[in-house]
């Protein structure tokens, strides 16, 4: 019996420390300033434990029953503390208030545990043995917990499930105690039923933890989510606020329906309207069909080939009524051929030639995407460009990512093309940049399709003017073996978001 008893001391101590670590870690993750968070949380927690110890003297009768209840309360509050805090951060303004309230309540309850346990067992051992044994196992448990937490729990289970796992341990100790001290209890059946209930609740929590995190994270998007899916390739989220539909890929905004016409008109018309007789067009990326919508405004175009990695993306934009309304069912046009393939190998293996090529990929946030912004890629693409053709490249913001923008322009130039950089203002993005490229001199078009809302023949020259704060910077080209762009992009955005 002795060893069983002390193992529960060990477990209880481990649990107490885990909740403290969970609170500290979550606060550091979500609010930042880990030194401050850990110091104040540990301080508050220890102080609250002192209150708990002080209060323990007022508990006189039915110690075992009270101990079981305390364990259950710790199990429930502690077990759900992490989920609760994530929700609090996502859905309320009072994260700190709730954080410290939980820390205080937990501290008080944990502070009650050890004094109660000592008193429960005091008749079985000498006083000095009780103190020695209980405290030894208490500190051992703390060591175990502090090692388990960073090495196994956080990397393997995550914070939400780690807390729940230890909630289960607390509830387990409660249930165990009803057997261990059965003779000191009057109504064990009811107590055990409650224990089982708590264990079940936490068990379900463990299984459903993913949904809890997802719900909390989804609230980062300001608006209603009308569609969310983890496709094989990316995390795709559509939101709507009144008449504004927004698409996010891996949490990066792709367009807002309020001003996407600015982006897509600017992407297509300065280049395409300048191609003498465009017959065949290639679009790389752009599975939303919005660029294709603009391209279809040219009746002489015979075929548009759209290459996008993600079939779920092109399917969604071919079928969802709200979205086909946005892209005028462009992907369903008989002139459009949708191919779901990885762009670089497709470009390498396809023999066709095109009069206009649109390259509209996500920003170069990592080395995988960075391959699509290299001299090797632009060289491969330029082999598909007809002599009189034009190519346009989405090139990030010359304002927020000035180094990156001019690095892309330099890369295209080094791939053997003439470049014509330009930029537009898209309210939901800010100042945004493109690079036109061709084998010949660029003459701005003398006409553009009728009915455009943003691009006009008169307005075009201004797009090619760069004010001093966006003017060209000398940048090296981006190569497969030396992706300066990914590093530059990382730095550019680090500078403006701390």
């Amino acid at each position: 019996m002795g060893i069983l008893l002390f193992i529960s001391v060990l477990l209880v101590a481990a649990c107490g420390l885990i909740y403290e670590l969970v609170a500290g870690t979550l606060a550091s993750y979500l609010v930042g300033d880990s030194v401050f968070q850990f110091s104040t949380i540990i301080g508050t927690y220890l102080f609250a434990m002192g209150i708990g110890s002080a209060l323990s003297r007022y508990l006189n009768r039915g110690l075992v029953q009270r101990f079981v209840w305390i364990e259950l309360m710790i199990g429930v509050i502690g077990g759900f503390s992490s989920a609760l805090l994530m929700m609090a951060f996502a859905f309320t303004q009072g994260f700190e208030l709730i954080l410290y309230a939980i820390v205080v309540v937990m501290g008080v309850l944990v502070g009650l545990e050890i004094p109660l346990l000592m008193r429960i067992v005091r008749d079985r051992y000498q006083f000095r043995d009780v103190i020695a044994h209980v405290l030894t196992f208490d500190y051992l448990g703390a060591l175990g917990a502090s090692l388990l937490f960073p090495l196994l729990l956080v990397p393997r289970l995550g914070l939400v499930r780690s807390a729940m796992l230890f909630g289960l341990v607390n509830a387990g100790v409660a249930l165990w105690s009803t057997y261990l001290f059965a003779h000191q209890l009057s109504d064990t059946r009811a107590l055990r039923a409650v224990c089982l209930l708590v264990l079940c609740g936490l068990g379900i929590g463990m299984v459903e933890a993913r949904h809890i995190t997802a719900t909390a994270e989804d609230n980062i998007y300001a608006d209603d989510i009308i569609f969310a899916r983890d496709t094989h390739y990316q995390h795709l989220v559509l939101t709507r606020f009144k008449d504004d539909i927004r698409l996010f890929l891996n949490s990066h905004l792709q367009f807002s329906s309020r001003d996407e016409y600015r982006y897509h008109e600017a992407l297509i018309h300065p280049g395409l309207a300048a191609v003498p007789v465009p017959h065949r067009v290639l679009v790389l990326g752009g599975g939303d069909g919005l660029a294709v919508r603009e391209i279809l405004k040219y009746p002489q175009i015979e075929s548009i080939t759209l290459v996008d990695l993600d079939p779920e993306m092109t399917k969604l934009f071919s079928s969802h009524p709200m979205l086909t309304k946005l892209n005028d069912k462009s992907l369903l046009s008989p002139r459009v051929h949708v191919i779901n393939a990885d762009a670089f190998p497709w470009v390498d293996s396809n023999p066709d030639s095109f009069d206009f090529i649109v390259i509209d990929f996500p920003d170069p946030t990592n080395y995988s995407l960075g391959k699509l912004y290299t001299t090797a890629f632009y060289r491969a693409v330029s082999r598909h460009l007809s002599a009189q053709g034009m190519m346009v490249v989405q090139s990030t913001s010359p304002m927020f990512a000035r180094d990156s923008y001019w690095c892309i322009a330099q890369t295209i130039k080094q791939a053997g093309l003439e470049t014509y950089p330009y930029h537009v203002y898209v309210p939901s993005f800010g100042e945004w940049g493109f690079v036109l490229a061709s084998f010949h001199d660029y003459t701005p078009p003398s006409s553009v399709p009728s009915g455009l809302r943003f691009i006009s023949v008169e307005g075009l020259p201004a797009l090619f003017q760069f004010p001093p704060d966006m003017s060209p910077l000398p940048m090296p080209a981006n190569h497969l073996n030396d992706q300066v762009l990914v590093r530059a992009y990382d730095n550019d955005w680090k500078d403006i978001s701390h």
Partner: protein
Amino acid sequence: MKVGRRRFLRGGSAALVGLSLKTDRPIAGSFVNDSFQMGHMLRDRASFHPPKRIEKVSVVVVGGGIAGLSAAWRLRKRGFTDFVVLEMNPQAGGNARWGENEISAYPWAAHYVPVPGPKAEYVRELFEDLGVLKNGEWNERYLCFAPQERLFLYGRWQDSIEPAVGLTQKGRDQFQHLEDLFAKFRATGEFTIPLELGRTSKFQNLDRLSFSDWLQQQGCDSRLVTWYMNYACRDDYGALAKDTSAWAGLHYFCSREVEEKGPLTWPEGNGWITRRLLERVGDNVRANEMVHHIVETKSGLSVFSGDTEFQAEFVIFAAPTFLAPYLLEGFPRLHDFVYSPWLTANLTLERIPDSRGAEPTWDTVFLDSPTLGYVDDTHQSVRTHIDRTVWTFYWSLVEGTPAQNRQLLLEKNWSYWKEAIVRDLERVHFDIRQCVSRIDVMRMGHAMIRPAVGSVFSEERMRLAHPRRDSRLFFANSDLSSISIFEEAQYHGVIAAQTVLERLHGHR
């Protein structure tokens, strides 16, 4: 008693709360490309059948590794076709062999060539032939993609293999001191690739002590410096610094320019070069031909392989030189040819293992691992989305003597090595067991020549590299240089071919 993390998790905390962990995949695999059985037949001087047929051919090249194939490349490039390359294994390529599955091609050993400097004239010529070098520019697709390498140390990644994280001031100073020394040695022009074009007796004394002794003399003893220097020797020579000649250790650091944008690499490693060479000389290559005897005759040499006697005027011996005493009658025992045993493995991964948030790199190394880490074989793919891959895992067995380690390679079964590899990787990639579906292991008892103390300037080696003028047999293996790298193998192969051509034209 050692309890693995996995067992602890399974049997301990996990079971306690009935937490279900994802189950591990069953791992298939076997030993592949074993060739020691054939080697042991030679060693034990097994009796071979007398020949059933005779073939006359001007030149026989023994061994179809890079040295042999390079000799063939040179012969054919000069319009000479009356020769055969005899390769013991079913597949030519030697240390530049490769494999392929539905996910990727992968190397079995050598997996890159550093961008060759100006002295490596023949390598540059080859790369121009293969379209790797065009108008003075290296084809971007064959240069190693970014990000290239990473080292896992003290619980995190850093993006080069030379340790930078956790250095003490002393360690930093020592790295700086070494860098300055290396720059000085580099400037002398003594340390070149090919080695033969720069080496004079100037630093011969450095061949008389070990690299670790030399480092001690320079006062370089800090923990991370020592680890890195040993890593370099294990990686390039299959030996610890204490078993490596100081001259060779310096050669590693002083033979190449600091600013390299390479190396050159391919999914199948140097297997890519083997494939391109075979496209050009494959007609002359005969696989599964184990030469078991070479005898001098009045007019030349007879090479016995299987049922055939090849009667040749000249022989280029491109196989590892240590085989010579077993094949050539009356050939003296060799003393200065020590070889390091290696183990490589190719791991098929059904998904990309967790890397603690880091993006995959080409080369991955763990601090303080007895192994050399692994190379990601889909790294040179231009795809943006890669969800399955093959890793090539490298392990030079350096603790103890080569003979002991060869014994170990023979004794331990596949499961032993599989488990050792998975455990090594598991330290960093927690979920590796849920990702890997197959591990094929290749054991090489004599994987590479070891530049042991005294071997770079060994008289025996010099004698074999520079045979008498009337000789009809020319050695060509990279072990003539005492270091086992592509450039040396290619150099000796080309030189041997040129010598043979000169001799043939001379008396015709």
